[in-house]
């Protein structure tokens, strides 16, 4: 038993470190693919690492009106993402799943968002406030969608622990595949775009403050604190990709300790994350951002899909 806990903790730590290490690369790859579609050479895929290194060397400036919330938020952000990274299966199903289930995961991410929204309003800048109010509008629909979508998988596999969901799906094979899975997958993918401020919900590359959602809340941050916020956001994107990959299509993930299994697991997750990154880049290259007040349509569609997924589980 103690061995189990140790083993799980070891792999959880390993996976969390890998995710933090890889997340800037994934963002770099998305930017590169987008640049290619624009016939540009684009910056190097390692650019996000250089950005992080540069920001981490710099001092932070704080608005004199900012309270402790602004100062604490970067640490809360990186900590909550870090804890989630410990609980989400990446290349193996060994993770700290026994600490908390998917509800904990979703609400740790909500904690991150909650503090980011507070920090956006904290310094009293207009754009921060606008970003915060829009983020709340978006997340009020995205959050239940995300929960419902993952609940579908919980219903299929009979457990609410993320690593156990992956494990049961991975060892059972295609027997568990149902229509509900695809509906939930679609719903979760839209949530992924919305939660990570990608086109068509938000434009991660804009300089227009008036249109910003996610970036608006970060406008007041600089230096080390900005680095932490950015890194947390990037890692959040990788976490969502990992959940998408390992909860809906966990095949290939390492379920035992054999070297071969681990190797396959690593290759499988890298391939899956790359496919997701490519899909995101394709969507960003091929669509405009939606009007702010059309977003609820898209998001409620995704919610409906998630709802249908749950219902179809009982009906079919």
């Amino acid at each position, binding site marked *: 038993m103690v061995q189990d806990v140790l083993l799980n903790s070891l792999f959880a730590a390993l996976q969390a470190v890998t995710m933090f290490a890889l997340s800037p690369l994934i963002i770099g790859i998305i930017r590169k693919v987008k640049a*290619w*579609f*624009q*016939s*540009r*050479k*684009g910056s190097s895929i390692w650019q996000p690492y250089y950005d992080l290194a540069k920001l981490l060397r710099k001092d932070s400036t704080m608005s004199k009106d900012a309270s402790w919330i602004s100062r604490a938020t970067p640490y809360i952000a990186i900590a909550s993402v870090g804890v989630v990274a410990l609980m989400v299966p990446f290349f193996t199903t060994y993770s700290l799943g026994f600490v908390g289930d998917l509800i904990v995961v979703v609400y740790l991410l909500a904690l991150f968002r909650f503090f980011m929204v507070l920090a956006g309003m904290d310094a009293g800048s207009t754009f921060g406030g606008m970003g915060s109010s829009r983020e709340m509008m978006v997340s009020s629909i995205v959050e239940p969608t995300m929960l419902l979508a993952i609940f579908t998988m919980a219903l299929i596999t009979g457990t609410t622990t993320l690593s156990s969901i992956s494990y049961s799906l991975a060892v059972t094979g295609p027997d568990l595949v149902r229509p509900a899975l695809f509906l939930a997958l679609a719903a979760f993918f839209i949530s992924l775009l919305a939660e990570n401020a990608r086109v068509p919900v938000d434009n991660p590359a804009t300089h227009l403050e008036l249109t910003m959602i996610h970036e608006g809340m970060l406008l007041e941050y600089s230096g080390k604190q900005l680095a932490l916020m950015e890194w947390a956001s990037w890692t959040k994107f990788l976490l969502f990709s990992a959940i998408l990959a390992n909860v809906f299509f966990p095949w290939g993930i390492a379920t035992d300790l054999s070297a071969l299994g681990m190797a396959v697991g690593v290759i499988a997750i890298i391939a899956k994350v790359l496919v997701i990154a490519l899909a995101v880049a*394709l969507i960003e*290259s*091929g669509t405009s951002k939606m009007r702010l007040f059309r977003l609820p349509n898209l998001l409620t569609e995704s919610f409906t899909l998630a709802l249908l997924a749950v219902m179809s589980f009982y009906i079919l």
Partner: protein
Amino acid sequence: MKVTNLFRFYRLGVGKRGVVTTRYPNGPAELPAAAQCAPELTGKCDACGHCAEACPTKAIAVTTSKFTIDLGDCIYCGECARGCPKGSIVMGKNCELSARKREGLEVSYDVRQ
């Protein structure tokens, strides 16, 4: 509306045109043949001062020994080149004109009679 048109841009990106970004900082800057950059003194100068007079921003100072042009004030209009009776001033091809300090923008030439 043709459905295929919806996905046009996927064909039009790098697939059709390739990367169009120039290699500039890593390779030489590619300027059109007629490009005009900063004025340069290339030939003889008898310090007549016509160029300094022609300059709309007074960026040129000529003494009997030195011809100095302040690229921080220069607007690259070419009036000095047109104003030089000897045709010694030409609009050069060097587009890398940045300097670390303000004084670095002042370029001096020795006046050769």
